[in-house]
């Protein structure tokens, strides 16, 4: 650290802590997907297609998640329907 560095502002978070925060989020996200069965993305698409026959929704309006506990698996399906007009 040279003499000029002492004048630099210290207020911003360090780049290392930004890196750690970003990594914790992406790694947690990727770990949660790791144990999902391979058929899940395709099943999600087909469910979306069925709903779309009746209601106009986008791909991002359907959240699908598989949670495994000790002796059972729960498939959680969240569909956000558009406002009725």
């Amino acid at each position, binding site marked *: *650290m*040279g*003499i000029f560095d002492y004048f630099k502002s210290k207020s911003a978070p*360090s780049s290392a*802590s930004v*890196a*750690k925060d970003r*990594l*914790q989020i992406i790694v947690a996200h990727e*770990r949660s997907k790791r144990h999902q069965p391979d058929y899940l993305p395709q099943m999600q698409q087909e469910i979306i297609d069925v709903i779309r026959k009746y209601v106009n929704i986008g791909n991002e309006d359907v959240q699908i998640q598989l949670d495994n506990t000790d002796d059972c698996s729960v498939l959680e399906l969240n569909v956000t329907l558009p406002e009725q007009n």
Partner: protein
Amino acid sequence: MAKIIVVTSGKGGVGKTTSSAAIGTGIALKGHKTVIIDFDVGLRNLDLIMGCERRVVYDFVNVINKEATLSQALIKDKRTKDLFILPASQTRDKDALTVEGVQGVLEELAKEFEYIICDSPAGIEKGAQMALYFADAAIVVTNPEVSSVRDSDRILGILQSKSKRAEEGREPIEEHLLLTRYHPGRVALGEMLSVSDVEDILAIPLLGVIPESEAVLKASNQGTPVILDTESEAGLAYMDAVDRLMGEERPLRFLEVQKKGFIKRLLGG
């Protein structure tokens, strides 16, 4: 029973081959008969790092294809007793490695060697999966940098799901974190992830921290494993890691910023 240790990382260029050469040499120095296998078919480099590139006649793929015997392909290290190298093929592609072929070679090696070090290629393709498939332990080489840490986590997922131990539901592969190219000065300035940051994210036991060191390039220039450079911090840090791998307690060192003279500090650099 031989212990099979894979040195892996997902990301390329983080120091897998340097670490395989150093750790394999370190284990042999402790008197255990050790072989290091280069799994990077098509891009062999372990021979160059070990300084035996001109002695390669037959390779791993020749042995799998029964074009040569194991004893013809194994290269005995000239410096370290009890150390052998099995080079990768430079001409074939990664499809030359088959589960049955690799298993056959490992079983034959296991009769003669105590430790089998598998130097994995980068990536998560067939070559990397083959290198880790039969492993009892894994050394995950990671740089304190976002892409390397993410890829290490990915490779940990593969170790836990696609290895032979995982498939057979046996005791999982022992996991060890080896943090390389660590720069204490930059960590102190908040410019680099710290040891504890990486430990927090990957959540596996730490085997060692190798500081960024000029000795590593110097050693590879000369074809000498850096662990033999006992004057260098990197060499000593690798030796500590080997001691820990053998179950000995060694405190971490070289993690502090070195004190510089007043003038040098004033001018920066």
